[in-house]
């Protein structure tokens, strides 16, 4: 590459980033446009071919009757409109009830995993972030280690720990509890709880009515025992990562406010709720959103562990999408499920953006009239 001759007129946007806003450096800028595109080309091409084009192709497949043979663009593949989507959403058949079941399972998974992993990782971060803690490095390492291992290896381990004669049941046996056959137990936790107090069947208005082919009674049944084992696993593997996010945020907090509150005689408990936690809000939202997005993508564990069994109670939309397409050759339906899942995840991402934007405004306001907002915030806080 030669960068010697004919200085290029400095027609470059002066508002470009960086502190370099000089007039006489045209020669240095020569050929930058070409290099810029050349440097980004590999990334653009690969992401384009394996990310953008696939999405477009799959969108077409979700509107077609392609059966997995030949090219999806060949002439004997037909446009079928929203047929695949309507089969899943109100076809009345197995496809609909499978999707409803998968959605139900995943909703319960989210309801359990997201709050628990967020709370646990915050607690771990607070414990580990003490200034005078011996072996801080050791504790952080111990809590973070499960996060680096592969989901396949962890699932294999979990299948053993939660097997009938597994470690968990042995530990429970020491305490005099007879553990269930975790990964083969399809009953829902809430239904289990109800039947323990004598309620075997739900009221008619719950059992008679259904949404997406799943009765309201089943929607409210809670995660199955098998799914619960996966829930525990998710909390185990993700709490370390989120702990590090919280630790980073805690270390960026200025101790001044906390000290001031301490001088005013606020208890540690009060200082946490009134001083520390409000300052952690952005990180809290990040963790919640990342958790939500991750929870809708449960695939590896199900593929490795249970394939949706027992009785489809660990089926997730992500796994159902794979199963419909690759095993049942219902490619259109599989792609349609993937897009519905996409919409769900994008909705959560947008929700997070929206909440964070809201936050930014209030912070700016806070700086301008800090006293006034403090007073107002109490009244406005949702």
């Amino acid at each position: 590459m030669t960068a010697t001759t004919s200085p290029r007129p400095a027609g470059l946007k002066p508002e470009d980033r960086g502190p370099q806003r000089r007039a006489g450096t045209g020669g240095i800028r020569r050929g930058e446009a070409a290099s810029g595109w050349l440097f980004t080309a590999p990334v653009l091409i690969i992401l384009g071919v394996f990310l953008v084009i696939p999405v477009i192709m799959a969108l077409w497949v979700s509107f077609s009757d392609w059966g997995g043979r030949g090219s999806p663009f060949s002439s004997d593949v037909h446009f079928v409109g929203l047929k695949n989507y309507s089969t899943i959403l109100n076809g009345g058949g197995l496809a609909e009830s499978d999707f409803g079941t998968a959605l139900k399972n995943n909703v319960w998974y989210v309801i359990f995993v997201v709050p628990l992993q967020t709370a646990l990782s915050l607690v771990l971060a607070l414990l580990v972030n003490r200034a005078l803690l011996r072996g801080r490095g050791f504790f952080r390492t111990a809590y973070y280690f499960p996060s680096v291992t592969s989901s396949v290896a962890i699932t294999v381990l979990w299948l053993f720990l939660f097997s009938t004669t597994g470690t968990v049941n042995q530990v429970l046996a020491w305490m005099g509890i007879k553990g269930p056959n975790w990964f083969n137990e399809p009953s829902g936790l809430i239904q289990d709880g109800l039947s323990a107090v004598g309620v075997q069947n739900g009221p008619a208005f719950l059992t008679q009515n259904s949404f997406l082919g799943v009765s309201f009674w089943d929607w409210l049944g809670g995660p199955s025992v098998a799914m619960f084992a996966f829930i525990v696993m998710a909390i185990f593997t993700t709490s370390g990562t989120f702990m590090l996010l919280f630790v980073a945020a805690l270390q960026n907090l200025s101790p001044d406010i906390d000290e001031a509150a301490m001088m005013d005689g606020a208890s540690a408990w009060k200082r946490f709720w009134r001083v520390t936690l409000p300052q952690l809000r952005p990180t809290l939202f990040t963790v919640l959103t990342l958790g939500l997005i991750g929870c809708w993508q449960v695939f590896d564990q199900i593929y490795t562990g249970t394939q949706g069994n027992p009785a489809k109670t660990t089926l997730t939309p992500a796994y159902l999408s794979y199963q419909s397409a690759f095993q049942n050759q219902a490619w259109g339906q599989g792609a349609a499920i993937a897009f519905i899942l996409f919409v769900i995840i994008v909705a959560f991402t947008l929700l997070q953006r929206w909440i964070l934007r809201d936050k930014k405004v209030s912070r700016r306001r806070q700086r301008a009239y800090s006293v006034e907002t403090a007073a107002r915030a109490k009244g406005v806080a949702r």
Partner: protein
Amino acid sequence: MTTSNAAILTTAGGGTTDAGHPSKPQRRRLTGKALAARIVLYAVLIAIAAVYIYPFLIQVATSFKTDPDAASNAASLLPQTWTIAAYEKLFVNSDFPLWFKNSVIVTVFVTIGRVFFDSLAGYALARLHFRGRSVVFAALIAVMSVPMVVLLIPKFLVINTLGIYDSYTGMILPLLVDAAGVFIMKNFFESIPVSVEEQARIDGAGTFRVFWSVVLPMATPALITIVILSFQGSWNELSHFIISTQSPQLTTLTKGVASLASGQLSAGTQYPLKLAAAAIMTIPVAVMFFIFQRRIMNTSEGAVKE
């Protein structure tokens, strides 16, 4: 336990805990209470750490047990009779070495590719001025938010259409770049002062030359981050290999071990074998983790006196 706690307490007394706001007599008065609090804190921390580490110890211990021993003493950390039968079977009588080899091949190529292409693109986005740069950047951000599980079917369609299904190309190429890595590199390059590279440019070095010999060596910390992320990401990757290969010759560790696991869920046998496989596949990532621990855990470690 008590002695170490006492030691901690002595340091606590002389230390700078809460920036010394509480007056000294007050602190002395709290010592008894503080000691109790310390003991409780450490007990809690150790208990949680035990819960986090115990499963991995069980994993290693069980891999040296016999099948009946694994079933009857699942919670014990010591095998009744030590045996390496599981490892023997894995390495001599199974495709495990092949899986391992495939995982190594993919991981090495993906890591090299990501380090190179991500930093190249990151540099261009941080430093080079070209029309469309902001569009490229916006596109990358958009791409980052596409969830991977949604891409299973689509990626298969493209890989199949391109005729690279069931080949190393199909396994490696789609993983060769990642938007998040570009983003990390871009941020890092923006933090390096421009003056260094300008000098090189004035001396007549071309853009690639400046990037390769001047800027890249300065970016080692960010490059290590990319290495860690790509290594871990590609070593642990499962779904992409499920949809891009079917031949047993191309099975990676994740796919192979998953097939081991799902082979006989209810039979409950062969746990030592499965756990040995899982343990071995954890080792490279664990080694990586311990080598770069400081970097991974680097949440301003130096800010606090040890």
